[in-house]
């Protein structure tokens, strides 16, 4: 079981890094936000950019995880159409390993993407707690498992590019805005703050701000880990089950 999962993980990682253009595309959006939106937020708050980035950059990591899900969903649809998934399904591979190997690959890729985004933010002058950064990378990996689970689950149950694009677009923007990734929820009216708590992506953003600021004992950190671990377990289980429906 673990052998098959590792086999798929290594195989998929090798494929991803043979052509690393897609993971690089994945960080274009957060990096553009860092470069072109971060300074605006800093200006509006009347703060220097170096101080502002400490609270702005964590949100960019969460956005990377959020949009990564869309990409992996399309990848899975391609594997479905080309018969790759069917071929693997008629093999002795332990069924869940087919999805788990890919999900773990996404987690690893996301950690590397996060490191690149963090380095760019540091180059832009961000000051942040080093242990906080390290813990955040792990939190983002768990967040990535959650969003990959959604991506694979949607792809395997809808089996339709158009339907998936519609659903992703419908949810992506409100989830992003309500996570406080762009502008913190402290600026939001009371009702919005109440709604935001129910947005899964809100929690890693809040925890990330605490981590970057060096408040490693902040209660938001265990909350974010707990929320993400539970949700990741649910969505990964869902995606494994969706595969089962397709391939016996």
């Amino acid at each position, binding site marked *: 079981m673990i052998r*098959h999962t590792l*086999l798929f993980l290594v*195989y998929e990682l*090798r*494929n991803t890094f*043979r*052509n690393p253009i897609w993971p690089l595309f994945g960080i274009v959006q957060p990096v553009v936000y860092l470069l072109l939106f971060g300074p605006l937020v800093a200006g509006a708050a009347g703060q220097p950019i170096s101080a502002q980035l400490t609270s702005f950059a964590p949100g960019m990591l969460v956005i990377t995880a959020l949009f990564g899900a869309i990409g992996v969903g399309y990848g899975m649809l391609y594997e479905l*159409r*080309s*018969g*790759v*998934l*069917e*071929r*693997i*399904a*008629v*093999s*002795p*591979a332990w069924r869940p390993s087919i999805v788990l190997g890919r999900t773990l690959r996404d987690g690893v890729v996301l950690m590397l993407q996060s490191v690149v985004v963090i380095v760019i933010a540091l180059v832009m002058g961000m000051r942040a707690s080093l242990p906080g950064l390290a813990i955040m990378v792990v939190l983002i990996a768990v967040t990535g498992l959650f969003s990959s689970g959604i991506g694979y689950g949607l792809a395997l149950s809808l089996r339709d590019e158009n339907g998936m694009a519609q659903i992703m677009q419908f949810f992506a923007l409100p989830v992003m805005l309500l996570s406080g990734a762009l502008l913190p929820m402290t600026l939001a009216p009371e009702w919005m703050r109440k709604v935001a708590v129910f947005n899964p992506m809100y929690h890693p953003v809040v925890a990330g701000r605490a981590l970057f600021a060096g408040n490693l004992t902040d209660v938001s950190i265990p909350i974010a880990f707990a929320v993400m671990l539970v949700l990741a377990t649910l969505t990964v289980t869902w995606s494994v089950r969706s595969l089962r429906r397709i*391939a*016996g």
Partner: protein
Amino acid sequence: MIIDAHGLRKTFTTRSRKGTQTVEAVRGVDLEVGKGEIFGVLGPNGAGKTTTIRMLATLITPDAGTATVAGHDLLKAPGAVRRNLGYVSQAGGVEESTTPRAQIIMAAKIHSVPDPAGATADVLARFDLTEIADRPGRTLSGGQKRRVAIALGLVHSPPLLFLDEPTTGLDPQNRANLWDRIRQLRELGTSVLLSTHYLDEADALCDRLVIVDHGLVVAEGTPGALKREVADDVVTLRLDEPDRAAETLKPYARETRVDDDVLRVYVDDGEHTLPTLLRALEEQRLALSSIALDRATLDDVFLAKTGRSLRDTGAAA
């Protein structure tokens, strides 16, 4: 017996706003495939060929029926069935961004082949793929991709290989090439179950076959026996009064069949019967616009069993 399947059934239900629709894709199929046989499932598109193969390959669970595949119970031990199976789908499952070698080595590892790299090199050589083994999948031609797909299904040397429409979309040269390679499998003792809607393919490759239509087996046997059951030869006539001509020729024929202005007369010794037929038509003053004498084909078998021509249904689908 490498496949022994009885009463396989599968009904698909699709739900939409218009209500629930059910399609009876397979309505009770029996298959008995011997060890080392190349066994064909011939039928028009939508006859239930792919559904049957996907059931036997553990991809979909039958609604009813039992099957033993490669010595294991399909329903109770799907894992054991998968270990003994090679499966090549219509889509093929060749990855675009990865090289054939990397994909085949991976398939070998999943199957716990002792020497994945060695087994891969062997199967690549067998299918003349060594030269293109390290190019990305997307650069391969249709025929090469098809061979990679089969190599992917064979790297673990399974006793049984499923080929779903193996030559669909290939040009004539690549088809002939692939036929030779499938025949070589027989020499190696690999049993093959292949589905096709090409008559010539079933005729050229299969030791035995079933003809399926609307989810049911309508005929079973060797290509030769199936054709002999209909007749040795077919005389195809075009004329103005096919019904009267059919009546006239009936005493000389095993069977006659009228489709629009075409009359098919099934006879056993075409070369010698033809002059007799022509004389009879002459006596009745029936004017011919054309006449042809051919060996009976599997299409004539299909026509005799279903009342339709496979060529027509194939073209329509």
